[in-house]
């Protein structure tokens, strides 16, 4: 696979050289991470019976342990997401027939809120490991997985489809097998985008952590030791101090995995940048530098890569394909046509079942009611994205034009995007109750609380790539004030803004479940909307109405994407620099 260092060093016997000082510095770090992971993993498989209450203590002494458990869950979910992305993208990009079904499916999955997955998955997972906590643990990991996987899979698929034609041809001319091509060409090409999406996914994982760890589906009330459950308990107990501690622990966690995991990975992945632009300053990482200097670590990684590159030989083409007579079979074409008929037929059947379901199980009045709720939430999402844009676009452009700030702001924005909205509940409830404000209006800002940052950092990135000459030309022509914004800045950041707004809009729909139904101890504030409807139905365990709510949310999100954001996106693409 991708040799980190010169492969020839790998022939040196492991631990042949005496350790240097970098070895001594890294050794405790490596041992600590390994020991912590092993300890956390052991805690996962405790006996457990349904109905048993797992005690969560609000004493901050327990926070490091909870953080460890949460981290373990998030990284397990991330690993699963990665594996899922590999398989998904490999199949979808290889078979056109599969692509026709899988890509729309991904669109739908992306718009299903996390509670929907949880409601379906919790029972089977518990049944899978009877009498053991591992089942619940798996359910939580699965919930986190559902908030991480989709954008990663889509990014990988997208990259694999846009591999430059000549590289693809080179790979084929030199007779690489599909397996080799994936590891040598397609995956390396996709890595920068994939890494970026992995970071976004981690933020997404935090955002829904409370829902994932404090499972309250269908009358169940299970809390797994972790930061999310800690927050949930703190909210129940109206403990503001504990909330503050949770924020600290989360910050520590984000800094830790950023420094120990993403930063080294980003610095290492720098070589996968495809464009030969020198503009982007390479990311540095102290950990990677130390690792490269350490003799033991180097010997270990060399071995590792050497073993991996051995795996490239698997599934190689055994025969010379030049004389292979099995070219596109006429039967293949026939099968494709059958497939083209089958897929619409299946979706027609699904629509029919849906109509029957609404007709017999929930009634049309209920369905109409839910659609109205959907419209209310739609109004909220659009209004707040608009408001957030008015606030953040000018600020983001201002920052983007000043490179000394833009890097730092990007890091802060990423942290803020990870900030679970539940942590804001005490402040919000306090304000709404004391000032007697209308929750229907004043709960709305919570929806974009976590998602507005996508607008911020996309526009910052967009503004920082405005060519300097363009700005000089504008100054030279004497453009000032509003005219300069209208003619230069806003058109220049438009494509970046659209990308950010699409992400923000998708996230806001998901966030509505948390944002429209706010609890703080015994106080519960509810805003009318699709999100609160789904949340209430989940608490009540009414599966028919959960399905109805989620189905309608999917329809709303997909229609909005297709008929609004996609149009805007194409427009932006047409006019990008």
């Amino acid at each position, binding site marked *: 696979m991708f040799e980190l260092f010169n492969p020839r060093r790998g022939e040196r016997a492991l631990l042949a050289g005496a350790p240097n000082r970098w070895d001594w510095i890294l050794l405790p770090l490596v041992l600590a991470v390994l020991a912590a992971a092993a300890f956390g993993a052991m805690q996962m498989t405790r006996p457990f019976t349904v109905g048993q209450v797992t005690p969560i203590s609000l004493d901050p002494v327990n926070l490091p342990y909870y953080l460890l458990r949460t981290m373990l869950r998030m990284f397990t979910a991330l690993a699963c997401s990665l594996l899922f992305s590999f398989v998904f993208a490999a199949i979808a990009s290889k078979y056109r027939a599969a692509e026709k079904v899988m890509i729309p499916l991904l669109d739908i999955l992306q718009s299903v809120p996390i509670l929907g997955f949880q409601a379906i998955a919790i029972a089977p997972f518990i049944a899978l490991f009877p009498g053991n906590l591992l089942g619940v643990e798996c359910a939580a990991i699965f919930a986190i997985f559902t908030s991480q996987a989709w954008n990663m899979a889509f990014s990988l698929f997208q990259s694999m489809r846009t591999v*430059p034609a000549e590289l693809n*041809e*080179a790979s*084929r001319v030199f*007779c690489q097998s599909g397996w080799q091509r994936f590891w*040598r060409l397609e995956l390396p090409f996709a890595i920068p985008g994939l890494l970026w999406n992995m970071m976004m996914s981690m933020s997404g994982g935090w955002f829904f952590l409370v829902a994932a760890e404090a499972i309250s589906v269908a009358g169940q009330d299970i809390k797994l030791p972790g930061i999310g459950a800690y927050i949930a308990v703190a909210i129940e107990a109206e403990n503001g101090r504990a909330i503050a501690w949770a924020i600290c622990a989360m910050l520590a966690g984000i800094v830790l995995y950023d420094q120990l995991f993403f930063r080294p990975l980003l610095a290492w992945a720098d070589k996968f940048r495809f464009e030969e632009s020198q503009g982007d300053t390479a990311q540095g990482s102290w950990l990677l530098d130390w690792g490269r200097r350490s003799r033991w670590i180097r010997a270990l990684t060399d071995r590792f890569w050497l073993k991996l590159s051995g795996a490239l030989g698997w599934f190689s083409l055994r025969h010379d394909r*030049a*004389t292979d007579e099995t070219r596109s079979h006429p039967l293949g074409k026939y099968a494709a046509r059958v497939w083209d008929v089958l897929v619409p037929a299946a979706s027609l059947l699904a629509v029919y079942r849906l109509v029957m379901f609404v007709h017999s199980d929930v009634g049309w009045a209920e369905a109409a009611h839910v659609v109205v709720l959907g419209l209310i939430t739609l109004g909220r999402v659009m209004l707040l994205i608009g408001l957030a844009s008015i606030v953040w676009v000018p600020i983001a452009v201002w920052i983007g034009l000043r490179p000394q700030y833009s890097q730092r702001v990007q890091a802060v924005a990423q942290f803020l995007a990870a900030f679970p909205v539940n942590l804001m509940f005490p402040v919000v409830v306090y304000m709404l109750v004391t000032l007697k404000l209308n929750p229907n209006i004043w709960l709305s800002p919570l929806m974009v609380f976590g998602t507005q940052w996508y607008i911020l950092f996309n526009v910052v990135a967009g503004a920082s790539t405005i060519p300097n000459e363009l700005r000089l030309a504008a100054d030279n022509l004497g453009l000032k004030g509003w005219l300069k914004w209208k003619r230069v800045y806003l058109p220049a950041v438009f494509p970046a803004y659209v990308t950010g707004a699409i992400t923000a809009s998708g996230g806001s729909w998901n966030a509505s479940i948390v944002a429209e139904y706010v609890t703080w101890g015994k106080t519960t504030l509810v805003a009318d909307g699709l999100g609160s409807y789904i949340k209430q139905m989940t608490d009540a365990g009414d599966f028919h109405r959960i399905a109805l709510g989620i189905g309608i949310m999917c329809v709303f999100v997909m229609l909005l994407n297709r008929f609004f954001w996609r149009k805007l996106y194409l427009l932006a693409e047409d006019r990008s620099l």
Partner: protein
Amino acid sequence: MRENLLMELNGVAKSFRSADGAPRLILDNVNFSLAKGEIVALLGKSGSGKSTLLRIMAGLIASDAGKAMYRGKDICGPALGVAMVFQSFALFPWLTVQQNVELGLEAQGIPPAEREMRADAMLELMGLAGFGGALPRELSGGMRQRVGIARALVTNPDVLLMDEAFSALDVLTGETLRNDILELWDSNKIPTRGILIVSHNIEEAVMMADRIIILSSGPGRIRNEVKIELPRPRTVDSTEVRSLIDDVYGLMTMRPIHEVRSGAVPATPVDYRLPETDVSRIEGILELLAYAPFNGKADLPQLSEEAELSDEELFPTYEALGLLGLAHVDKGDISLTPLGLRYAEAEKTVRQELFGQQLLTHVPLAARIRQQLEQEPTGTSREEPFIELLEEFLKADEAKRVLEVAVEWGRYGEVYEYDFHTGRLKLPDQQEK
């Protein structure tokens, strides 16, 4: 004789589907062979399908009709004995030079030790010893293409296919690399038995090849074949080479026979692939041609040298000049028509007027657009009908390109205008009622 052939194409045809599903012929009835011990160059204007032909031989795309054979066997996919060098180098940017060179060997499952040995030897041969640990992005274009060639040669290919391998390099670097390959070939340091070069550079083809095949465009057919018996190394300035270059220029710019035969200037069809060249280049060449040292008539290779532009960049411009009746191209020479001379001396506004007038007379697509717009009460029309019209004959992207050229020329000649945001064509403002 048969066993002497490496590659053999019999009646090969290929068409691609255009947007509306109608097939469009790219290659038609191509018969071609590559024998052991020869270097063949394929020349043709862009759109003549020469790259498609190369890819059929590489096993990257399948032909629709006819037979393509490598060593007497049908080509159904990339063959082990055929290696290829790419125009854009196609190096994997995340692999070191060494790993890039080993790529083909790795795919064949050759053990690491042998891989390394062979790669080292090849790097040495290509003058890349010591660069094994470098990433491609650290190297200059010339060095990158050396890696590309080393990667192809290390697999000990029978046939080496070169797809415009030198055109992304500057002239000097391209020449050096070309000579290096010829030296390896002539001194039998590489086991390769045949080389096929796709190029648009006439000088390059004449300097390297034993045989030049010229393809006509739309659809690509073999139009001429020129055998070159001069021994290598050849010198560019020798009279034989010069006259050969002139001959090939003449063959390249010649109109297909059936068009010339009819005597009068042949009518250009609506779907004529307008050459991809912009107005400022047309005028630049026109001016260059009009004044000293050329004074209205020039030898094409000389003009190319003076203009500091490659043949590929210039051929479309010549075509445009001929199409608009501003110049005549004949057997490697170009001469301005009286109108062309007047044009060169005219003021900017007069030029635009002349341009518009010539456009309407000689380019039916422009005339059609203008006519259509005049019939519309609003004086505007969507672009789609014209794209659809072109797509009856051309591939979708080609149709779009041709319309783009027609739009640019029309804008310049003030024949019609086009609004990018609305996607509508319209009559120029002053004539709108």
